[in-house]
């Protein structure tokens, strides 16, 4: 747009110098308009063509992560946080992504086996995003998976790759307490942090504690309401 106001400025001299005829403002606006509309149409077409694949992939990755941290439930339900309470049903017409979500794993009989939630906190470099599963009846961890992190390769990224570290999140009890390796006294709340990745592994513990403290009361409140 601002280019049109310039058409009588230096560009005019340049046009005169190269012997180029002056272009009318109408033609300039028309060219940009046509180019814009063509670009828009092409993008809408590609968007329509690629969007289903992209959404399907995202849904698949989420499903795999939820099933992993809930130790393979028979099925799971998505719970939405609406007006401070959890619900599995959304009002017709409201958008799913507008609400925060957690996932409730069920066994074949429809009994709740675990709750999965995702959360993030600043780590060593960037936010570390983690999804984890816990049993709401006793606060026992069921699994932990790092979804996003830019921690240092070879050091901080052990929070994903160190199997011993990850395995601790299938038995520890919430709220977790981070302790140096070998300094624990057998308390089931304790999690050994990785030497050389202290900040990153503490970050995982903090993420889980924060999310557990937030979601567990809501889950209890919901279960209390459905099971009078």
């Amino acid at each position, binding site marked *: *747009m*601002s280019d049109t106001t310039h058409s009588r400025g230096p560009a005019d001299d340049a046009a005169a110098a190269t012997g180029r005829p002056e272009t009318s403002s109408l033609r300039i606006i028309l060219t940009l308009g046509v180019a814009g509309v063509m*670009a*828009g149409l092409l*993008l*809408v077409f*590609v*968007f329509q063509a690629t969007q289903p694949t992209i959404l399907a992939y995202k849904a698949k990755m989420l499903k795999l992560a939820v099933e992993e941290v809930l130790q393979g439930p028979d099925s799971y339900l998505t719970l939405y946080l609406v007006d401070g309470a959890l619900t599995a049903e959304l009002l017709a017409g409201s958008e799913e992504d507008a609400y925060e979500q957690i996932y409730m794993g069920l066994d074949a009989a429809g009994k709740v086996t675990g709750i999965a939630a995702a959360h993030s*906190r*600043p*780590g*060593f*470099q*960037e936010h570390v995003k983690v999804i984890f599963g816990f049993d709401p009846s006793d606060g026992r961890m069921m699994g932990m998976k790092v979804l996003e992190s830019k921690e*240092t390769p070879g050091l901080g990224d052990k929070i994903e790759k160190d199997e011993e570290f990850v395995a601790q999140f299938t038995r520890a009890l919430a709220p977790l307490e981070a302790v140096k390796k070998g300094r624990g006294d057998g308390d089931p709340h304790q999690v050994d942090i990785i030497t050389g990745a202290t*900040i990153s592994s*503490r*970050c995982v513990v903090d993420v889980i504690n924060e999310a557990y403290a937030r979601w567990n009361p809501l889950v209890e409140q919901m279960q209390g309401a459905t099971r009078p």
Partner: protein
Amino acid sequence: MGDLVWILLSAMVVNNFTLALFLGLCPFMGVSARVETALRMGLANIFVLVITSLCAWLLNSFVLEHAPFLRIISFIVVIASLVQIVEMAIKKFSPVLFQQLGIFLPLITTNCAILGLAIFQTNRGYGLFQGLAFAVGAGLGLTLALVLMASIREDSERATVPSLARGTALVMIIAGSLSLAFMGFAGLGSAT
């Protein structure tokens, strides 16, 4: 509040735009020969970054929600025209400021730090104030990197550098060392 401080610090030193994300390398190579120029370039950058952050937020919240595929196009078009409007406005209302920043403004339009800021802000879902903190942090970080680089280069002119290493190769290796030094800031965020 702690969140805003973290965003600012993170963009400024932990994930410095130039030294960790390689954004804004053109001015980093081009105008880092003198401290004075580097400082002014940095200030002009902060200015444009803040305005861009505001525009990106407006676009994201009111227009692009319904048409995410127009994001890249609308960002680049809005940034380019905006910088031009700002340039004209400064020229008219504050000739002194224009003297200080003016020549750098057109250069900034093609600076990848500006579009980078808009896109990172969108990807991370920052709100208005988070975006502004991010922009100020990124701008301060760019300025810091530029001024540090310029002061090292001013000194290196008096050193006896082998003729082979003069020019870009030397700048790259100095930048590498600075980037290595900035890695020491990592972990700062987890304290907040």
